């Protein structure tokens, strides 16, 4: 932390008190969020205690929640969602770190490569998914097609038609969608690491790998950690990718909590039951984030806050 004086609180040049001015600046954004996000959130909590549907709503207490607690299928969905999140985020992080390191290398053409990573990030998610829909097709997709041609498989494989392969296919697509943005953020963080550190290590004869492990990684750790949390939350709530590829199928093989919620509420008009599922998502993510922030603070202390 720099030790610059806090001009705002100590000097009263302007007639308007600091707190008033600050609240005038913040109020529009706060109001907007209250109306468009906070209020619907409160409303979701309320609905979760009703059996709201197209016909109307009556208060049913904890019935929706009791039902969820009982349902083996719902437990499976929760486990699947965490597995989906863990696997996808881990794959993304590894790929993002490798990608950022490669793009950070001082080689001819690096400018071009940096541009070429961006497309999945800057196009609508839904459009990228259409491309993957095609790739996974057994008859006209390039993956199954080329695999057949070179004799890897005997007949067409429909990647999205089987429970297991559909799940992992969706993971691959999710990794594809999520990787470019974080790669660029990590790249930016890597470029922010002072060259002096590397030069000092280099003079001492440290190898490239050693420099990466002992300088790069610790220096960008705060960025990695906060990116990982955001990435985890986004993956947990990732809707469009699964919806476009499989709509949660086949036989529930790719149904995560968010898909289950959407299907219940929007697909079957069971607003109350859907709301209960939405509340479960919020609670699980709140617990997860709190635990994560706790770890984050420890990490920040260890590596020094940046």
């Amino acid at each position, binding site marked *: 932390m720099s030790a610059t004086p806090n001009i705002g609180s100590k000097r009263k*040049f302007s007639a308007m008190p600091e707190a008033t001015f600050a*609240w005038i600046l913040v109020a529009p954004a706060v109001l907007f969020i209250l109306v468009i996000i906070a209020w619907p959130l409160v409303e979701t909590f309320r609905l979760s205690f009703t059996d709201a549907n197209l016909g109307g709503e009556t208060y049913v207490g904890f019935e929706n929640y009791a039902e969820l607690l009982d349902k083996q299928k719902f437990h499976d969905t929760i486990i699947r969602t965490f597995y989906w999140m863990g696997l996808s985020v881990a794959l993304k992080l590894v790929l993002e770190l490798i990608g950022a390191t490669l793009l950070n290398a001082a080689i001819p053409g690096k400018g071009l490569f*940096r541009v070429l990573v961006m497309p999945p990030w*800057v196009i609508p998610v839904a459009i990228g998914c259409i491309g993957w829909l095609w*790739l996974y097709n057994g008859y006209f997709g390039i993956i199954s097609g080329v695999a057949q041609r070179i004799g890897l498989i005997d007949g067409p494989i429909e990647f999205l038609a089987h429970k297991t392969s559909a799940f992992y296919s969706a993971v691959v697509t999710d990794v594809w969608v999520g990787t470019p943005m974080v790669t660029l953020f990590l790249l*930016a963080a890597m470029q*922010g690491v002072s060259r002096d550190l590397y030069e000092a290590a280099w003079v001492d004869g440290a190898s490239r790998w050693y420099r990466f492990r002992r300088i790069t990684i610790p220096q960008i750790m705060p960025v990695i950690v906060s990116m990982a949390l955001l990435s985890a939350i986004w993956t947990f*709530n990732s809707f469009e990718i699964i919806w476009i590829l499989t709509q949660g199928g086949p036989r529930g093989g790719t149904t995560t909590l968010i898909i289950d*919620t959407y299907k219940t*509420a929007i697909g079957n008009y069971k607003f109350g039951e859907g709301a209960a599922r939405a509340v479960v998502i919020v609670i699980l993510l709140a617990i997860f984030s709190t635990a994560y922030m706790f770890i984050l603070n420890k990490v920040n202390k260890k590596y020094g806050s940046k």
Partner: protein
Amino acid sequence: MMDRYTRLQLVGIYAALAVFLTFILLPFFEMFMASLRPLEHLFRAPYQFWSDDFSFDAYRKMWVTVPLLGRYIWNSIYISFAVTGLTMVFVIPAAYAFARLDFPFKNATLGMFLSVNMFTGAVLLIPLYRVMRTMGLLNTYWAMIVPGVAFLIPTGIWLLRSYLEKIPRELEEAAFVDGASRIYTLRRVVLPLAVPGLIVVGVAVFIGAYAQQYLFAITFNQTRELQPLPAGLNEFIGYQSVNWNEMMAAALVGVLPVMVIFLFLQKYLVAGLTAGAVKE
């Protein structure tokens, strides 16, 4: 000298980059190939990677099959610009307050913004639908703009705040000493200094708005003329058959304008992200 690679290392780096970029670009390559493939090819076995009757016909026919295609492409861009503009109007003052000023409930308010990141539109869809209906926004551009703005404000504040924190305070102090008002200082001193940061945040918000309009569009808008591209592409799915090749062509052409914009902006983007990280 430190940056010199041996030949073997260079080969390794380029090989790894090739694998990485193949993964990233494969769907685009496949979409392009699919757009050239005549429809009757689709179910031909065995799989043919290339054949002589590939053509660019789809790029011509798509405008006829879906007459509103141009409109959809425009809608996507229009909605994204509107979301970006509006989001920045909310984000700039708030981010400044969080970066520089002290006020009651500051941390609680910031925490509230950050926790919005825990939700996506899909979680709040039912009550959000009712809010939109009450405000009379269903089936208008606003139905897609308003929720987009709400979900992007927190990200914008988070990004811009950390950028503003890195601008030295001395200039603001100088303005204060000269008797400048708070608003004058914000407008004339802080904002000009923050331009690179504003570009980065603006671009990031634009990308967010452009990438995620599908859900709000299919839920809150039934007016065909207002649909953005991702939703409009559904029209290539006909009663009898899907015009796959035209759909792929339309998708590629549809994202082209934004891709071109990014080609020009990418320098600022990486540089801006870096600048945010370098200072201090």
